[in-house]
């Protein structure tokens, strides 16, 4: 066993903490913690799939009905179901991020995490990874069933789907950062904020209708939000077979700004919680 030269005391049997490898090991450790939780409870895993499945079925059947009565709906096959699948990517990814963090407060474990060598950006990285895992657990079965029931293959969107997916999950992480920051600062009293924040984007981001439908004054706000470009892009592909690269570039540029702002808000509220002492009162 190694000895500390000055004190004669044994050095702790831990690895060098300052390396990238140590950082990745801590992130992996925390991801493992959330994976164990998902694995330990089948109702939790089922719950991940439940709402996206219900939504997909509802919009799928609605679209089938409209297709029989409307030439537009018949032409726009896949529009609603594609929109609902993409919307659920945003919702499930944000909730996956936020709920993983809430787990720490519900289980009164946050003190242990904050006292451990885990750094704030490593906590964020673990939450990002967990949100992706939960998203895949939820969306792979639902996207498969959308193909089986309604003959809608999300992969038929090709490269655009990868761009849609990336832009939506990055936006969801930005929202997750803000919502967890708020919970860090104000505790479980602000929990509902983490659950609800994403839904304000449902009407403004024009999930099911074009931006032009919005009142004139609301359109600049919609165009300042990355998901708006994703849903506009979906409509452009389905209705016109158009190329959407320029829309995705705009969405990505906005996402970079939103993610940086989200992390700054998270870091600010974390520091604020340390100043106000709320970090040690979490869960109480």
């Amino acid at each position, binding site marked *: 066993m*190694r000895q*500390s030269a*000055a*004190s*004669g*005391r*044994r*050095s*702790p*049997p*831990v*690895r*060098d*903490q*300052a390396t990238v490898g*140590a950082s990745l*090991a*801590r992130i*992996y*450790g*925390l991801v*493992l*913690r959330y994976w*164990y*939780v998902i694995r*330990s*409870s089948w109702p939790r895993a089922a719950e991940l799939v439940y709402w996206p499945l219900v939504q997909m079925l509802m919009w799928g059947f609605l679209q089938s009905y409209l297709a029989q009565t409307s030439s537009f709906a018949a032409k726009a096959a896949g529009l609603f179901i594609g929109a609902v699948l993409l919307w659920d990517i945003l919702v499930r990814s944000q909730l996956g991020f936020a709920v993983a963090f809430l*787990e720490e407060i519900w*289980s*009164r*474990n946050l*003190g*242990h*995490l*904050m*006292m*451990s*060598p*885990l*750094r704030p950006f490593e906590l964020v990285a673990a939450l990002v990874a967990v949100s992706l895992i939960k998203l895949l657990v939820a969306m792979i079965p639902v996207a498969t069933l959308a193909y089986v029931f309604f003959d809608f293959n999300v992969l038929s969107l090709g490269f655009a789907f990868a761009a849609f997916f990336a832009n939506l999950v990055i936006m969801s992480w930005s929202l997750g950062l803000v919502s967890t920051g708020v919970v860090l600062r104000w505790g479980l009293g602000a929990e509902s904020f983490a659950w609800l924040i994403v839904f304000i984007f449902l009407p403004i981001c024009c999930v099911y209708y074009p931006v032009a439908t919005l009142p004139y004054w609301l359109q600049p706000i919609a165009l300042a939000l990355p998901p708006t470009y994703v849903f506009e892009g979906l409509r452009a592909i389905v209705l016109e077979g158009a190329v959407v690269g320029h829309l995705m570039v705009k969405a990505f540029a906005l996402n970079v700004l939103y993610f940086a702002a989200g992390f700054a808000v998270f870091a600010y509220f974390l*520091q604020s919680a*340390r*100043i*106000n*002492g709320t*970090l*040690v009162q979490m869960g109480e």
Partner: protein
Amino acid sequence: MQKPVSQSNGALPPPVAVRELTKVYRDVAAVNGITFTLASGAITALLGGNGAGKTTTISMLMGLVVPTSGEARVFGADMARERHKVLHRMNFESPYVDVPMRLTVRQNLEVFARLYGVLDRTARIARIAEEFRLTEMLDRPYGKLSAGQKTRVSLAKALLNEPELLILDEPTASLDPDTADWVRSKLEVYCRGHAATVVLASHNMAEVERLADRVIMLEAGRIIADETPDELINRFGRANLEEVFLAIARRGAEGAEGSP
């Protein structure tokens, strides 16, 4: 290993050095200008009634609360700004902070071993599980254990990285006397065997008398006594630390009642 944070003269800094530490919440000073240094290998009890400032002091030592003024240094690192340099050399245990209930004991120890960068995790977990009589329950969910078993798991978690500084917040609260005695014995063995520095917050005076080399007594955020348990007992002319604590607490209460 990371280089230890050293002082300008090259000497290793003390495990804990607190200088003029103050924390004010709105208009209330939870901790009011306290100063103390802990020597390596010492077990120091922080005592005081509810609201005396123990939890806030401990929170600032861990870097979870930022001081309003003054500083709390651990192994030379300012815990308000550079806590990540030393967190792997510390750990803590408190019955008021749980580990995840749904995870098994083994999974919890595995996760924390990774967070602390423990080398040779499997062997370390097996060894500490045996030491804390947890081997039989390694695959049981933490949430299904008794209070005594949970405390043993929390202690195992706290000692996973063989911390040089161990912070204990009422480590035997809500335990039956036999289990509490067993826990104290384990802590004694660990601290003496590893020359670990310990900060112990407790309301159990018998525990403090048995474990602590030194007592820092807080009242309204200030240090009102800082000596060994025996010195404190002698100075107050009492039979034990419990009586000293009661005498100080009642004196404070009478003072408060008599004040305008």
